[in-house]
């Protein structure tokens, strides 16, 4: 029976998979603890910096400088440099805030939720996905701080003891956002750092440069791999994953409440929380693919980030894309079914045929139609096509937030309040500047920290070997 079936190199167990061939391995065979450690730490510890990294970081750095110019001008001159007007009080600022936060969610999902589901394919991607989350949240947090009229008093958003008898409005979703996103940033940072500690110890032990040896040693805090410490470490890691899972769902739910708790047609919909969370995971996985495909190519990590990983990520994208499509459908259905003339106008007439209709149809193409290609294995296996698809989905999810925010605001209840919106160069400068900041932080991470979780790869190697016996 065995010779009739297609048994792959990993020596899969046909009985376990109901007679089907075993799925491809998560690590290419032939690796040992030493080779896994050496391969990943070599990227960090080698003396010379690859030219491609320098070029990439230089571009990101220039964009970051552009961000600082844009922010400086904003603080000095005021919100008027953006295209925001009345009634479109929220535009690129909130679109980009939601876009960045959404992107961040995939990292936490991969780290925390896939851990709880015991999905071993998370292992080679979780470290840089978490880093991606952190940097995305950092870029997102810029917007709430700067989009307020007096950004120099942004700290009034927090309930601190003061002489003015001032407390924030706890009943407002905007305040819920402050707490949710701050908590998300803090927990993600801690989760990421805790995951790094054993790998920092590895770098400490392998670094030849005295400065880096001391730096990694300081950050590793004396980690020595003691069994007692590993026990508590695993308990803490599991508890953090258990905390991060409802957190990530709650954060984007609270972000959706910024819209859903209002009374505007097109915003006041109960589908928003699950639809936003699914959309966040959708765009987040798209960004993980956008980053991981070039990274694995450039650093030669195809042995660790295998075709199976890309395939799984593509499937998650497809599933969440279908949930997002369902969200669009339900919005439209409810608009018709409710017979509420404002809802019907906002969602059907305005989106399908209004002044921004081309963007809405582009959105449908990017988020609903094109991702259906992911059903086909040949498409998922074509790495370049998958990468282009991930870019398309990122653009589509940006357009979704544009449609939700700007298209609704330009045409609300009273026609006398209608007004068009167009972004200014400062809107674009700030947005591309945050992309630059994100990439700059990412490049620094790739150069100075292990981009794959080394100790988890060792554990995975062990488990993969055990399966083969």
């Amino acid at each position, binding site marked *: 029976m065995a010779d009739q079936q297609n048994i792959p190199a990993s020596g899969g167990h046909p009985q376990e998979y109901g007679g089907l061939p075993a799925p491809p391995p998560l690590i290419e065979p032939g690796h040992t603890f030493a080779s896994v450690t050496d391969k990943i730490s070599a990227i960090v510890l080698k003396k010379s910096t690859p030219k491609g990294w320098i070029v990439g970081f230089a571009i990101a750095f220039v964009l970051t400088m552009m961000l600082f110019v844009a922010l400086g001008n904003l603080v000095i001159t005021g919100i008027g440099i953006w295209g925001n007007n009345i009634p479109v009080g929220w535009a690129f600022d909130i679109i980009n805030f939601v876009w960045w936060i959404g992107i961040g969610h995939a990292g936490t999902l991969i780290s925390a939720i896939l851990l709880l589901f015991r999905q071993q394919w998370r292992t080679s991607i979780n470290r840089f996905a978490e880093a991606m989350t952190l940097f995305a949240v950092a870029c997102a947090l810029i917007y709430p701080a700067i989009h307020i009229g007096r950004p120099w008093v942004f700290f009034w958003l927090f309930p601190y003891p003061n002489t003015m008898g001032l407390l924030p409005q706890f009943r407002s979703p905007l305040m819920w956002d402050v707490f949710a996103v701050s908590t998300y940033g803090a*927990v993600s940072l801690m989760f990421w750092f805790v995951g790094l500690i054993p790998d920092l110890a590895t770098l400490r*032990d392998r670094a030849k440069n005295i400065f880096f040896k001391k730096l990694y040693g*300081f950050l590793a805090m004396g980690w020595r*791999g003691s069994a007692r410490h590993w026990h508590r470490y695993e308990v803490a890691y599991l508890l953090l994953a258990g905390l991060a899972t409802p957190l990530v769902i709650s954060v984007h739910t609270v972000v959706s409440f910024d819209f859903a708790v209002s009374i505007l047609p097109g915003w006041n919909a109960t589908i928003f929380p699950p639809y936003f969370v699914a959309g966040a995971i959708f765009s987040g996985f798209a960004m993980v693919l956008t980053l991981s495909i070039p990274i694995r190519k450039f650093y030669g990590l195809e042995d660790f980030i295998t075709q199976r990983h890309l395939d799984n990520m593509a499937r998650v994208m497809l599933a969440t894309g279908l949930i997002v499509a369902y969200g669009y459908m339900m919005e439209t259905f409810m608009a018709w079914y409710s017979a509420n003339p404002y809802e019907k106008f906002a969602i059907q007439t305005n989106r399908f045929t209004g002044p921004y209709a081309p963007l809405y149809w582009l959105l449908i193409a990017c988020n609903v139609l094109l991702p259906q290609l992911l059903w086909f294995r040949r498409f998922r296996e074509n790495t370049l096509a998958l990468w282009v698809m991930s870019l398309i989905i990122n653009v589509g999810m940006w357009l979704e937030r544009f449609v939700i925010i700007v298209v609704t605001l330009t045409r609300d209840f009273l026609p006398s309040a209608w007004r068009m919106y167009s972004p200014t160069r400062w809107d674009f400068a700030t947005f591309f500047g945050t992309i630059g900041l994100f990439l700059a932080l990412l490049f620094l991470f790739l150069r100075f920290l292990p981009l794959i979780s080394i100790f988890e790869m060792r554990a995975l190697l062990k488990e993969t070997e055990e399966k083969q016996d």
Partner: protein
Amino acid sequence: MKLEKPKHATYGLMAEFHTPEELLEAAKRTYAEGYRRFNAYSPYPIHGLSEACGFTSTRLPLIVLIGGLVGCLGGFGLQYWGSVSYYPMNIGGKPLNSWPAFIPITFECTVLVAAFAAVLGMLALNGLPMPYHPVFNVPEFTQASRDKFFLAIEARDPKYDAARTREYLKNLSQYGVYDVDR
């Protein structure tokens, strides 16, 4: 005046292993032999290893629960105090203790303090940061964070005897037994 030599100038003895199974077996045997002050070191967490070293439970989950409760009560308490006592506002006669509206922030505070408790609790219970530890004095130990496994028996252990423990470890490990200086 002659300086007193410290009671144990040595921290103990350390044996090297090359596979996790060997280390797990060694830990079980060491515990069965009656040693209690010993520890195992590995580059990744090994299932069952800390139990084999005699360490079964940790207080960390309780610490995290307490953190969560503090966060929950604190978050809700802050909003309750602010809305009912410190700065009550009559908005259309709506209840001051509008607890449904307080839920999101309460939840976020719960998670925040629980997460801090998990991380800081884990570090505190582990005694980290601890930049110096005698095991780092063994040059081969740098491989503990790469692909080698170690078992160290402390001199403080009541059953420790320099000669017999060394003999025992030499039987246990074919790769090497090292002195760990304090």
